[in-house]
Every structure is written in structure tokens, then in C-alpha cells.
């Protein structure tokens, strides 16, 4: 009985993932051992994983009041809140714009080229202008996360509206459905997978943006702590913890969107096999 269960486990894709993770840990550790041999301060370059894990549980204070992990977690909360609020606002605005663009083709023609161009604008470049308008660093972080969320959601939702089969629209038309009904019963439900594709791309980006803006100015947040730690204002392990935490948060935010998608439309096949890269299908 037990043997069969083990056999099943070895044949499953989970086992493949486990081996890959173990392999990565091995590579990291070999690297860390090499670095420890050559460098005077190996913890600045590549510490052993157990050292990082040890620093998570260490009770040594990194500043006057908090241990390293307390600093990281309290600042992570600040960053996440801003990213979350910005993400929600941006997603809503993106969806509304996609709806507008699908309702009025003039709006689509006018705005769509610029929507593509927004991608090219460096995020941090927008920070000072947003700061000047809102006169508040907190608000500007939220706005920047919102802008970053906005365009993947808008473009993906729009292509969702466009992907609805012509026959279905014609059927609705021949049944004399009102425009409102066409949207409520046909277009919006069938655009949901596309909306979630946009959300999955946007969620890690909103977090990245929030951390990046943190590094611009003081006032807490993961990015702020990260640059302080890199300047050796506090122990370097704060930096390593933030690196791992931001990776975990990034991946979890994607998973959260995938989970939400299942919740909203459980009968649908969820997106692609691979996260974040299944944005666009190749044009035939």
C-alpha cells in the first residue's frame, strides 16, 4: 500500500517540482560555500540559506526596538496595503476603460495606441509628478501601483470583449436583447478569463512598483528598509529576508488571482500552464 503511494508520488509532477527546488537549493549552497571561501564578508554577497533562516528566528535586535523579522514584517504590511489599494483602484479603472472602449469605437481608436505606450514609461519616472499632484508620498505610491495595474487589465479585458464569437452577438441581436443585456449576459461573463489574465500579470507588478517607490523616499515600506540595509544602516540579513519575502509575496499574489478566478468561474479552464507569460496568444 505504502509502496504504491510512493510510486504515485514519484510519477507526479509534484515530485518534479520538489527535485527542481532541491536542485536550486543545492546550487545556491555551492555558490555560498565558494563565496564564503573567497570573500571577507560573504553575507553581503551570498549567505548560506540556513544563515538567512537563522536570522528570521534570531531574537537579536536589528534597531533599537525590533528584531530583523519584526522590521521586515511591519514594513511589508505598509507596502502591501499600498500595493493592494492601488491594485484594486487600477483594476477597476482598467475594467471601466475597457468597457468604454468596447462601447464606443471612437474612444478605442483614440486611446488604445496610448495605452500601449504607457507600458514604455518608466514607473519611477512618474513618481515626482504624482507626488507633486497628491502632495503625499503614500498617495503617490498608491497611484503608481494603480497606473501599473491599469494597463494590463484594460488591454486584456478589451481583447476579452473582442474574442466573443460573432455568432453569439448575432444571436443576442436577433433575440432583440438590449445593449445592457448583451454586456451583462454575454460580453462581461465571457471576458472574465481575460480580465484575470490581466490581473495575474498586474498583481506582482503592483507589488514591485510599491517596493520601488519605497526606495525613493523615507517613510517606511520594504523598499526603504532594503536600501537602508544595503547601506549597512542595519543588518544585511534584513535585505536577504526582504528578497525572499518579496519573491514569496509576488508568487502568492499571482496564486491569489488564480484562486479568485477559480472562485468566480469554477467551470472554466484556468488560463495557461505557465504564470505571467501567457499574456498574448501569437497572432496567426
Amino acid at each position, binding site marked *: 500500500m505504502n509502496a504504491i503511494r510512493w510510486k504515485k508520488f514519484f510519477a507526479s509532477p509534484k515530485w518534479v517540482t520538489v527535485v527542481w527546488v532541491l536542485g536550486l537549493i543545492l546550487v545556491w549552497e555551492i555558490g555560498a560555500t565558494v563565496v564564503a571561501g573567497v570573500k571577507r564578508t560573504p553575507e553581503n554577497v551570498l549567505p548560506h540559506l540556513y544563515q538567512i533562516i537563522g536570522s528570521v528566528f534570531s531574537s537579536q535586535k536589528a534597531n533599537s526596538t525590533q528584531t530583523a523579522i519584526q522590521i521586515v514584517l511591519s514594513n511589508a504590511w505598509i507596502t502591501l496595503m499600498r500595493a493592494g489599494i492601488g491594485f484594486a483602484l487600477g483594476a477597476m479603472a482598467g475594467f471601466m476603460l475597457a468597457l468604454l472602449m468596447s462601447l464606443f469605437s471612437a474612444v478605442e*481608436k483614440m486611446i488604445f495606441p496610448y495605452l500601449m505606450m504607457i507600458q514604455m*514609461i518608466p514607473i*519611477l519616472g512618474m513618481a515626482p*509628478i504624482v*507626488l507633486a499632484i497628491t502632495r503625499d508620498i503614500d498617495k503617490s505610491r498608491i497611484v503608481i501601483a494603480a497606473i501599473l495595474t491599469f494597463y494590463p487589465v484594460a488591454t486584456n479585458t478589451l481583447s476579452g470583449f473582442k474574442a466573443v464569437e460573432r455568432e453569439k452577438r448575432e444571436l443576442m441581436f436577433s433575440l432583440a436583447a438590449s445593449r445592457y443585456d448583451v454586456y451583462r449576459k454575454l460580453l462581461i461573463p465571457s471576458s472574465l478569463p481575460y480580465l484575470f489574465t490581466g490581473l495575474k500579470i498586474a498583481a506582482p507588478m503592483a507589488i*514591485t512598483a510599491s517596493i520601488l517607490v519605497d526606495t525613493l523616499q523615507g517613510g517606511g515600506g520594504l523598499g526603504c528598509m532594503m536600501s537602508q540595509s544595503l547601506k549597512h544602516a542595519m543588518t544585511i540579513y534584513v535585505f536577504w529576508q526582504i528578497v525572499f519575502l518579496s519573491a514569496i509575496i509576488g508568487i502568492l499574489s499571482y496564486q491569489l488571482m488564480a484562486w479568485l478566478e477559480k472562485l468566480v468561474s469554477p467551470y472554466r479552464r484556468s488560463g495557461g500552464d505557465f*504564470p505571467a507569460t501567457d499574456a498574448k496568444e501569437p*497572432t496567426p
Partner: protein
Amino acid sequence: MNKQSNAWDQISTFLYPVAFGALFVVLWQTGLLHRLLGADTFTLPLPGRIFTIIEENTPAIMGNVRATLTVALGGLALGSLIGYLLGVLAALFSKWGKGGLTLASAFNAIPIIAIAPILNNLTKDFSTDANIRSMFAKILVVTVTSMVAMSVNAYRGLTELKPFSLDLMRSCAASGRQIFFKLRVPNSVPFIFTALRVSVPGCIISALVSEYFAEYIVGVGRQIRENIVLAQYATAWAYIVVACAMGIALYAALLISERILLKGRG
């Protein structure tokens, strides 16, 4: 649909965005935009002033553009190449490869800002010249970020074949080598462009971000940051405009080459 409305359709596709852009610039130049946003001309300079600055500082700006483009394109080329090879490996050893790619794409969610300082520290010994070693670190950051999209898409391109095409090849007694070069590789070409559509804008952005953390102060992204710190917003805006132009130019070049290379594909 008659001919006339078709022509209008094409004209308006071009005319509407131009009109919108012109309106935006006029609003900006006349200061109405500032009143709408509640900004002043110090933090949001007039377009005329931004272009004067670009004109006056062309040599300095071009130097920074060259540095950033080297990083972005070098990283993109290296990352795409490695990514494609990884995709090939994954396609050859499908069971292990697919798991590896799933894991790799999970790494895609890791913020660039977490990767940039690590690579920066790792490459400290690469060269005694700060310019060269930080250039190397920046190229590595871009390589990492553009690798994942390419490897996943290459894998899909090499394995998602048209139904029965593999059976046809086999029934013609094609060797594994022939199947690979005559069926899988050509099939993956559109997928390469899908990956590039993600990674070309991505490579500019990661080049800009990696410059923020680099040791040596050079590049368009770094200049944006330095000028913001010095409260020279007009100069910072000039570099922002240059960065946007770079991104748009690269994307346009990609679309044009895609149209030429994929010509005649159904």
C-alpha cells in the same frame, strides 16, 4: 460595408489618436493641464522646455542612451538565446523540463528590485573598472528577466504542434532530427515573437531599474533618478521622454520585423 465608410475607418484609426495626442500637448503647453492636475511648471515643465533641454544636452543624453541600450539589448539577446535553449532542453526532456519551466515562471513574479542588488554584489569582482563591472551586472539583470518569457514560449512553440503534423512526419519516416528542425523549430517562430512582445518593453524597464542600483552612475534611468534627487525636474522629464522614445522605437522595430519575417504565414 461600402468603400467610403471603410476608408473613413482607416483614416479615423490614424486621425483620432493624433488628434487626442495633439489636444493633450496643447493642454499641457498652455498650462490647462497643470490647472486640472493641480501641478506647477516646476515639477511638470512645459513640453517646449523639455524639448529645449533635450536639444541642448544631446551629446550627454546620447551617451546615456547608448549605455542603456547596450544593457537592454545585450541582456535581451543573451536572455532570449539562453531562454530558447532552455525551451529546447525542456521540449527534449518533457517530463522534467515542464516542471522546471513552471518553477522558472514562478520566479517571474519576483520583483526585479530584489534581483538587481544581489547580482550587483555577485559581480563585484568581475572587473576593476566600475563601469564595466556594473554594466555586466545590469546586463545580467536584463538577461534574467527576459529569459523566462522566452523559455516558456519556446517550449510551447516547440511542443504545441498542429494536430496530426507529428503523425504525418512519423508516417513519412522522418528522423527525430528532421522532426525537430523541419517541424518544431519553424512552428516556434511565432511564439518567439510572442515572447519578444513581452520582453522588449520588459528589457527597457529592467535596464532602467537595474541602473538605479548599479555602482557606476550612467544610463537614462539613473539620470532620471539623479535629477529628481537634485530637484532638477525639467532635466528628469527630458530623460523620461527619451526613455519613452527608446521603448516605443524598440517596440516599433519589433513589430516591423515581425511583419516582415512572419509574412506569408496563415
